[in-house]
């Protein structure tokens, strides 16, 4: 494990991913960028706010080889709202990295299941695979959102599927009317979807990330289908 520490970072730039999601990219005020494993998270502490809010954890969405540490934040409440207001140059403490949501190099067949902004750590992991040109890595990503406009990183994800032949993405929209000319699923991830896409996949490890109800429901689907609990790895956005 890489030791965790508190370091001051400055917001370098902001990228709008969707009406509700911004990616904030930070650079250290001094010294080196933190070392982390793709899949880990950091605690963000907005030290410059007049009324300091307690720090919150955010998955790192950039890859370990990027020049910045980025987090992708969905606007929900007080803290995420305040993060959306940050302007370049703002100072924050990033405490971390933390978490063990890290696929091991021995795991050559991976199923990723992301609910909404739960895609963030997967983007980091996938970019890491691209960086290593991991052509032998098989990944099946189910990316679930309510509606089409909630999908973030679409362009980057498509680029990743082009760069790595082992990566496939199934977009699941749970509250969207079906459009005949579009690939993807218009339902929740369930046992039949697992069977349809994964039956030939063989032994694999499952990584799940999203809200507590999303991860709970999805892992129950897997367990019902007979997946061993040691093979199910989860990150909860509580």
């Amino acid at each position, binding site marked *: 494990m890489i030791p*965790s520490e508190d370091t001051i970072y400055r917001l370098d730039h902001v990228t709008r991913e969707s009406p509700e999601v911004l990616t904030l990219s930070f650079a250290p005020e001094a010294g080196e960028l933190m070392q982390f494993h793709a899949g880990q998270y950091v605690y963000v502490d907005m030290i410059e706010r007049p009324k300091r809010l*307690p*720090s919150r*954890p955010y998955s790192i969405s950039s890859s370990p080889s990027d020049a910045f540490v980025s987090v992708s934040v969905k606007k929900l*409440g007080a803290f995420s709202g305040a993060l959306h207001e940050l302007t370049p140059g703002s100072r924050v403490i990033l405490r971390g990295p*933390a*978490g*063990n*949501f890290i696929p091991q190099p021995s795991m050559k067949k991976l199923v990723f299941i992301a609910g909404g902004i739960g895609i963030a750590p997967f983007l980091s992991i996938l970019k890491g695979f691209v960086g290593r040109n991991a052509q032998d890595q098989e990944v099946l990503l189910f990316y679930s959102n309510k509606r089409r406009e909630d999908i973030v990183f679409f362009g980057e994800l498509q680029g990743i599927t082009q760069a790595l032949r082992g990566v496939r993405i199934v977009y699941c929209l749970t509250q969207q009317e079906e459009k005949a000319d579009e690939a993807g699923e218009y339902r929740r991830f369930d046992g039949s979807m697992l069977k349809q896409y994964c039956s030939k996949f063989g032994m694999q490890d499952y990584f*799940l990330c999203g809200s*507590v*109800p999303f*991860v*709970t429901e999805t*892992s129950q689907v897997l367990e019902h289908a007979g997946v061993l*609990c*040691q093979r*199910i790895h*989860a*990150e*909860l956005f*509580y």
Partner: protein
Amino acid sequence: MDFTQIGEVLEGEPKYRLAQAKRGIFVDLVEDWEQVTAFPKALRARLAVDFPLPIEAQTFGDTKMTAVKALIRLSDGKRIETVLMRHTDGRNTVCVSSQVGCPMACAFCATGKMSLLRSLSASEIVLQVLFFARLLKPEGERVSGVVFMGMGEPFANYDNALAAVRMLNDHDGLNIGARHISISTCGILEGIRRFTSEALQVNLAISLHAPDDKTRRELMPVARTHTVLELLAVVDEYIAQTKRKVMFEYLMIGGKNDADEQAHALAKLMQGKLCMVNLIAYNSTGVFVPATRERMVFFKTVLEQAGVPVTVRFRHGREVKGACGQLLTKEDAYVLPSDVTDAASV
């Protein structure tokens, strides 16, 4: 009441007023600024408006009972539960909530079903203790300990929970010894790691509730983020660094986590650890049934035979406050069994 604002409210006043105000609130436990006679009349009148002291709450039970519950109304109208436990040895422990609702969604927990409404500020956590300190004052009694086992997961609100610990611990404030404060977590590993590095004398309690990953994951979503062995490795690091005994809570649920092999597995995990296991009778919230008394006795025996210190909280009389997630949301009073123990006694 936001205790961090008191300095601001007193701006322009002589410096010593702040110490006097704090003394009034936390030591003399005044409920009305008029009682702070050291303050000029005009200041008292101003503070009554700018920093009102009353705490709006409904209490269930009275201080003669072994447990008194209060529902405290916060400034935004949300209500939180807090419980005073009175022990036969004279200790008075307050069980505080750290969040309104809880995001962790444990299957056996009524609070978990509410999901998270919001986290509490440090002041709102301290307020719960202050409320009972005031209630006990006429008897010449004080709050001697605090356990973070009410609504919410303290490590999901880490900064505020720890800030509250520091406020409770303040010698010029409520002056509750760190050794008499316990934080109970459902198993947020990063929280435990950070807590380890704080070098505080505060006790740590872990809601384990199952020795195997499969059962634990069925009971607690957070268990999906780590294995029992990973959790115990982080706890071992805590023990190694702090040399403090850790309390493991184990709610006994019929047909779920009370089998013979689970007792043996639990004993094996706990053996040789600087720890203590607290077996708690499950207080049914509808989904599960409590384990029988015989099962609890069996677990106790197995643990004792393995040399693991163990306490048991049997279900007794009316409903019981047991562990995090076992606070009642029913609005009535209830009593604690006489053999109650709590984390503060670790």
